[in-house]
């Protein structure tokens, strides 16, 4: 049986979709059979981030309403060994799908895939309820900002209340030089406040913007964020890789800034 993981955050714009795409691709590169599902009805994005926007014929709502078979809606990303996308509908609203329908869909997919990754919409309304309905594990994405961390705290409370016990934190867009200056919360500051297990840290990296422009992932590329996403994927598979503590080590700090200067 596969594992169902929802990628969520509460606040919009912190990198849920980019994270879903990179973790999906990363896990597939590590030999897993993965399906990523865009659950943001009306605001379809995951296909664009992955560069698959021109291949959509059917979508999630078509599958749930029975307008097509599941196999017809799933897009295979041929660049990777076993990676599939179930796109969202661009023209429908959140009420087109119910949590029960989502749970059934995800339960069906669990039998066929090693990982089912759900890209959750921002907010805590029906789209969120739909996305978490079939999930047994979550990745809460946040950036080191007051508003994003506040929303992450709220989301963690809601996930726990929904009976999802394995909730892990991914801190995105950490700016090492600002942490050093005392102008951005460090990894320790954030984990102390949110008190859930840390899955990983993705430093702010322009390569993410460049890759997204091109509809390509950073995972697997030789850049800082790419290597960090790869580590996140390995941790998901149970490998014990220590999280680089970007805030304290002078040596690592120098290495990272050196890298930034080079690129």
């Amino acid at each position: 049986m596969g594992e169902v993981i929802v990628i969520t955050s509460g606040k919009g714009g912190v990198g849920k979709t980019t994270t879903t795409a990179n973790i999906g691709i990363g896990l597939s590169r590590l030999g897993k059979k993965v399906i990523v599902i865009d659950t943001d009805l009306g605001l379809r994005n995951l296909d664009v981030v992955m560069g698959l926007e021109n291949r959509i014929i059917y979508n999630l709502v078509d599958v749930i309403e029975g307008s097509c078979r599941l196999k017809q809606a799933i897009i295979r990303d041929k660049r990777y060994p076993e990676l599939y996308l179930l796109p969202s509908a661009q023209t429908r609203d959140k009420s087109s799908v119910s949590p029960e329908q989502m749970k059934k869909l995800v339960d069906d997919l669990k039998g066929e895939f090693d990982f089912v990754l759900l890209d959750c919409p921002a907010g805590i309304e029906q789209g969120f309820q739909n996305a978490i309905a079939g999930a047994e594990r979550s990745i809460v994405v946040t950036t080191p900002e007051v508003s994003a961390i506040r929303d992450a705290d709220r989301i963690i409370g809601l996930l726990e209340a929904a009976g999802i016990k394995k909730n892990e934190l991914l801190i995105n867009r950490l700016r090492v030089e600002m942490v050093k200056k005392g102008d951005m919360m460090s990894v320790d500051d954030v984990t102390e406040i949110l008190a859930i297990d840390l899955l990983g840290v993705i430093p702010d990296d322009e390569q993410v913007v460049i890759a997204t422009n091109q509809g390509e992932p950073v995972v697997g590329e030789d850049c800082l964020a790419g290597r960090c996403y790869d580590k996140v994927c390995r941790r998901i598979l149970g490998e014990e890789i220590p999280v680089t503590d970007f805030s304290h080590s002078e040596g690592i700090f120098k290495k990272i800034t050196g890298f930034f200067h080079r690129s």
Partner: protein
Amino acid sequence: MSVPSVNIAKERLRSLLITDRIHCTPDAVDRLSGDLYNTVSKYMEIKPEDFSIEITRSDIHIRYTGENH
């Protein structure tokens, strides 16, 4: 040199999370803390500086550091 802004961020966040977690306003949190302090002080000798309240997601921990030992 100015104060690192991260301290301000952490302070603001802490106060926000407490009010979010127990669904009440900062003012209500202050009154709750005052009432809890008064209640505890009926039974043991405490001073405000030895008394702190910490609100986690679903629990309220009352912490005090006594002197008479």
